């Protein structure tokens, strides 16, 4: 008798309502989020003829990558018909150095502000962090003046400088918050071992900084790659960034709207960030939550 009550063989298995509801909700949400991307991908592989007859949303009848090729190196932007490809290269040439520059400088800032504390360090920190709250529009005109007085207007270098400087408050904040959790005693020990400011930074701090380094790189690269306002203000013609070129491509086609080319171009422009997230997304999350470094 006793064993019967314990095993409870009389009770019917319960229907797992909670997990079922959970997955249903998640499924619906995932569907809603993936829809626009799906439509873009599907449209980009349909021939223009099919889009015109069957409507802009639909399953491709025959799949073709012609639109991708056109978007990459044939589509006309203003009077130049070389596709997105030169501007894609511009964006890479801007985003990669600007990302690295702002990340490295942010790391040095965060290190100096936490481990080599000096009079006024906290005030300086607050001032730097205030930069996070400055809207781009507010610095547009001063930035334009600075660039022209430096002779960097309308050049790739000008945009690198602007993006690197504008990113500094964020990267500084990231690294400061990370380094604050590293025990000061490590720096003291290294000082007594004879290491100086830069050796401690490169040999002790940087090797333990990769989680926050990833966060900073992903954050900066995404921001810079997708940025439009500075791009459209400070680059024209051949030095345009990919976002500006994409905008021009979509807005300036003559005659029939080439939806498949527009979609392919948008996807191409979005691809680097997507790839970055695919490869380092999990480091990004891990880096955001990683705080202390256990010695």
């Amino acid at each position: 008798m006793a064993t019967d009550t314990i095993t409870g063989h009389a009770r019917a298995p319960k229907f797992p309502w909670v997990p079922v509801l959970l997955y249903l909700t998640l499924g619906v949400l995932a569907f809603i989020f993936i829809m626009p991307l799906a439509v873009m991908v599907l449209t980009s592989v349909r021939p223009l003829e099919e889009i015109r007859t069957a409507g802009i949303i639909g399953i491709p009848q025959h799949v073709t990558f012609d639109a991708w090729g056109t978007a990459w190196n044939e589509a006309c932007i203003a009077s130049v018909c070389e596709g997105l490809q030169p501007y894609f290269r511009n964006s890479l040439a801007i985003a990669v150095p600007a990302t690295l520059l702002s990340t490295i400088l942010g790391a040095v800032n965060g290190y100096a502000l936490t481990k080599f504390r000096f009079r006024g360090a906290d005030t300086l920190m607050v001032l730097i962090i205030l930069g996070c709250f400055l809207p781009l529009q507010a610095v547009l005109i001063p930035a334009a003046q600075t660039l022209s007085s430096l002779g960097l207007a309308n050049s790739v270098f000008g945009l690198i400088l602007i993006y690197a400087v504008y990113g500094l408050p964020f990267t500084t904040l990231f690294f400061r918050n990370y380094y604050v959790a590293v025990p000061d005693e490590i720096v003291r020990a290294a000082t007594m071992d004879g290491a100086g400011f830069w050796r401690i930074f490169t040999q002790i701090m940087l090797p333990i900084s990769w989680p926050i380094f990833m966060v900073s790189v992903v954050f900066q690269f995404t921001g810079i790659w997708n940025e439009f306002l500075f791009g459209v203000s400070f680059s024209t013609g051949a030095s345009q960034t990919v976002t500006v070129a994409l905008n021009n491509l979509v807005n300036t086609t003559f005659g029939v709207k080439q939806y498949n080319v527009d979609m392919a171009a948008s996807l191409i422009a979005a691809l680097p960030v997507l790839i970055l997230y695919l490869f380092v997304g999990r480091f990004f999350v891990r880096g955001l939550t990683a705080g202390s470094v256990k010695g």
Partner: protein
Amino acid sequence: MTTLNISGLKKSFGTTDVLKDINIAVGDRGFLVLLGPSGCGKSTLLNVIAGLEQVSGGGITMDGQEITRVESKDRDIAMVFQSYALYPSMTVERNITFSLEVRGVPREQRRQAAAEVAESLQIAHLLGRKPSQLSGGQRQRVAIGRALVRSPKVFLFDEPLSNLDTQLRLETRALIKRLHQRLGSTSVYVTHDQSEAMTLATHIAVMSKGEVAQFGTPAEIYSKPANLFVARFVGTPPMNFFPASVTERQGQLLVHLENCGAIPPMDLSSHGALLHSVGRKLTIGVRPDQLVLAESAEDGDPVLEAIVDIVEDTGTDMFVYLRSGNQEFILRQPPGLPPKSGATLRVALPVTNMHFFDTELGDRLSD
């Protein structure tokens, strides 16, 4: 071998004086322990010796050479930290030899140095590991190895055992003592744990509020505490204190215990130093292990009737918490049948083992 002299040392942060006129000398083969509660300035003093903090006044000399303004790395001093402070990304071997690496010692020599040090600390099998793969005790051994490898003139220890559990703390304490015995290097050791201080030190500086409350050998500190602060801080369980007063009658010095009800005053005419305290408040200190049960007391020692509050049996000792009138005190007894709570004991205060302090000034009345 090295002598270390600290004279007139001052350190302030803004308007707060953290160290006020510190004067300490450590001789050859000396092991100085800076002992005090948290916030007494002992760690700041250590950092000043290490060169990690600048002084506000006074100076430090090593072997007669002024080092007050010398940079930390040029002082030939190594330090072991409470949190171990190992470099997380480096292997144990590289942690130990980092200082040599900075000084440009060739790889082969570094490897050999690491092997020797690791051998002496029994961590040779750990050389390839990262700090995160080590236990607390192993980490502290690596930290000690990092200090040893440089054969510095002076070793500094900043509460190196505080993060270890009891067993490891005893082992590592013995390790440090053994190393000091073997190498004889001058050492300065900061702790708030008086048993570490008593066991390791050749000299102890008890610190309080940025000042040295007493500087002396462990035996001096224990047997002749210079003031109430030291008397209270050193010894477990702490010394018992009995408020008292002195009167003079017909050439006799009579001492009255104030909280213990009606017991006859003691005639302490033999203690000449008390003469100056007539009419002043006095504190009499007696260590728990020097109180005796009345049966084994000597004639003339005052006897208190006390009620047992609680009894702590540690296995090696039995600590009896007692109350007599308003006076609470602790008696140490050898292990045995513990007295029952509420029972009455007759306890004698041996005059020969009394410490006399001026209650207001806190100073010891010399005998």
